[in-house]
């Protein structure tokens, strides 16, 4: 025997389960603590003979099972009732009975998977293919049909000679001294390993790129994007002019697209009269359209003071005398026809909405240029009797 080697432990093998139980009892009652029994299958009564405490694995299961249940319930509550609440089948947002199946499944999933992971990694300290017991004759025999006990050198009572004698007294089949295997070292930066990493990186990134950017745009994945139908701005072989989009039949007008007869004129005729009264609904409509289409340049209060100031020729304020003196028809005409750099908004804002915007501009103008008489008027309306 090579005495340079460090002893891991001394092992003895037995033939029957009765013998190993007796051996385990003797070893544990002689005060050894760092010993282990290796059997090809769990032998009944061994825990008691070895004085092993019951496994605490169940606590992992309990904690993780409860976490699974609460994670599932909280997540479903958050998605279905908070983040994107939607009425489905007339059920409440927090439909507990309908959440039970998923809650149960996640409880089981988390409990079992974490039990097994905890058992292997924390309780067993596996994987460990470098353990001194591996590849010994002892391991091979207890893996098949023998029963073995090994007293480890870390035990405080360990002494090579006395332990060997002690085990011999138990009348084993065989006694084996087990040494630590020679230390192997595996430098991480081996050329082979680096090349392997590079190959994996290239394959993974290349595969991902090809899948997402090429493969998914080929047949049949692109069938949904590429259908036999007319798309806007796309050619079509169906018509003689090769265009997919059609112009209206001559002499017809599409619904809601009444032609505007004053296009291009700088001086609008005074015949354009506002057909809408400034009711509350009308003003609300005008406000929303003004804020959407007009405010980007003219500002939220039509001061000509917008977030675009300085990037374009400054849009004018609508509170100038000139603007206030415009007739309703003139403002309508400017929205419809455009003026200077301002384009026509006829295609974006409908006829009714344009008149509503005009009404709203009138409100803004009145508010910005209020006179004392307006104040008195307002106080009358609101019933306030403050007189300063």
């Amino acid at each position, binding site marked *: 025997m090579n005495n340079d080697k460090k002893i891991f432990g001394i092992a003895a093998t037995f033939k*029957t389960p009765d013998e190993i*139980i007796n051996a385990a009892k003797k070893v544990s009652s002689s005060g050894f603590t760092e010993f282990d029994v290796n059997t090809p299958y769990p032998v*009944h009564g061994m825990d008691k003979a070895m004085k092993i405490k019951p496994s605490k694995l169940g606590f992992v299961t309990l904690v993780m099972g409860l976490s699974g249940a609460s994670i599932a319930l909280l997540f479903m509550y958050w998605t279905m009732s908070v*983040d994107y609440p939607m009425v*489905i089948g007339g059920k409440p947002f927090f439909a507990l009975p309908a959440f039970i199946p998923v809650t149960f*499944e996640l409880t089981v999933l988390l409990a*079992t*998977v974490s039990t*097994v992971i905890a058992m292997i990694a924390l309780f067993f300290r596996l994987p460990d293919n470098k353990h001194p017991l591996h590849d010994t004759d002892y391991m091979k025999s207890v893996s098949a*049909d023998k029963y073995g006990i090994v007293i480890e050198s870390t035990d405080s009572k360990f002494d090579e000679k006395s332990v060997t004698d002690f085990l011999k007294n138990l009348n084993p089949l065989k006694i084996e001294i087990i040494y630590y295997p020679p230390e192997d070292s595996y430098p991480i930066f081996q050329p082979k390993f680096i090349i392997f990493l590079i190959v994996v990186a290239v394959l993974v990134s290349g595969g991902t790129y090809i899948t997402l950017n090429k493969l998914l745009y080929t047949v049949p994945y692109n069938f949904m994007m590429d259908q036999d139908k007319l798309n806007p701005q796309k050619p079509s072989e169906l018509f003689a002019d090769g265009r997919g989009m059609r112009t209206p039949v001559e002499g017809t007008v599409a619904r809601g697209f009444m032609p505007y007869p004053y296009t291009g004129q700088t001086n609008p005729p005074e015949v354009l009269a506002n057909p809408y009264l400034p009711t509350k609904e009308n003003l609300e409509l005008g406000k929303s359209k003004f804020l959407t289409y007009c405010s980007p340049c003219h500002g939220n209060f039509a001061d000509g003071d917008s977030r675009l100031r300085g990037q374009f020729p400054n849009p004018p304020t609508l509170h100038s005398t000139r603007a206030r003196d415009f007739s309703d028809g003139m403002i309508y005409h400017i929205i419809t026809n455009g003026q200077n750099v301002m384009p026509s908004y006829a295609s974006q804002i409908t006829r009714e909405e344009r008149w509503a915007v005009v009404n709203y501009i009138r409100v803004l103008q009145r508010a910005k240029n209020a006179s004392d008489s307006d104040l008195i008027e307002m106080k009358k309306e609101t019933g306030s009797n403050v007189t300063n």
Partner: protein
Amino acid sequence: MNIDYSQEAPTVAGRLTLAQIEELVARPMATKPDKKFFIAISISSAFLLIGAICLGYTFYYGVGMWGNNQPVGWGFGIVNFVFWVGIGHAGTLISAILFLLRQKWRTGIARFAEAMTIFAVMCAGIFPIIHTGRPWLAGYLVPYPNQHGLWVNFISPLVWDVFAVSTYFTVSFVFWYVGLIPDFATMRDRTVSKFKKTIYSMFSLGWRHSNRHWTHYEKSYILLAGFATPLVLSVHTIVSFDFAVSILPGWHTTIFPPYFVAGAIFSGFAMVVTVLLFVRKIFNLEHIITLNHLEKMNKVILLTGMMVGYSYAMEFFIAWYSGVPAETFVFINRAFGPYAWAYWIMVSCNVIIPQFFWFRKIRRSIPAMFVIVILVNVGMWFERFVIVVTSLSRDFLPSSWAYFKPTIFDLGILLGSFGLFFTLVILFTKSLPVVSISEVKASADGAQPTHHGGAYNE
């Protein structure tokens, strides 16, 4: 006949020693595959190839290649899904429920049944995904944060299904792997090939058969079995919710969950017996998978077959007793309508044929039980067909009634799923121990300490 019922029959027949058990189980992995193996795998992979071709056509041209029509939107895709999930139920039942019930005879068949569970759930999982027509978008089934701010609908039974089937697969797989760890270690220590040794070492995780590990290991087995038991009952319950939560007559019944679970165990056991009959013969495992095992499985088949028969009768009774005209119509239509042929195949294969198992001679006769379990498999497939197709083909509106006829692609994909299943089973028999070596050793005669000489002698 004199049978001593006070003694449990030995789980391993023929008084094999531990070494002989190990040798028997490990032999298929140590020897080169023979001619029979290649014939078997070429047949099963030919089926698999047929399925793959039909699936290719489906992906290219769309689900229109199938016989699905309006109103039968759920054709073979869902029939096969429910069928295969059902097959998968036997494995977990054997490994979990029978474990909790301390049925020692389960050790011989548990590993194989668990493997069949995993393969059957794999077959099942394919069907709902291909049924969507765009299987590459299946990731949308998972709740993940996306730019639409949308989540999956947790109130939908179809989402419950996703969670149930994926959990079932994961837990079955974990259960199976935990059981395999000691066997991998045994294989590692007995193989002479360096290549195999590396693989077995990797999967054994360096298991040392240490008793300090065995205590946790046994604990984990009880915990896993405790969770897998309600899980196996929940999975087919949730599958039945796909139907029961809808308002279609013939589906909208509260009997569905227990009825589906009984049917699943019924069909699963029939499939396990079918495959085991071959495996025990080909690999000479007659001493480990004994006639006693098969007889016990046949008893379970008889019991669950009668539960299924009771459900069929109860459905009819409730249809009449509830007085709902639509419900009454559906059931009369099932038995005497255009699908009467399927209905009577189902009833005769599932209810009448298993009654032969009342006779001990038939329960213990290999050819007889083979015929019966094959017919049970056929009957259970037709049960799902009857449930899915007859209810859909004639619902409330007579103007939208239509007859469902499968196309060659439907049949090809069904064949392909059997091909996939049997290919995986055949590969499994040659690459992993088909019987749990450590469990069978532990339950062999003389494997545990005697009462006077060991543990109980304080």
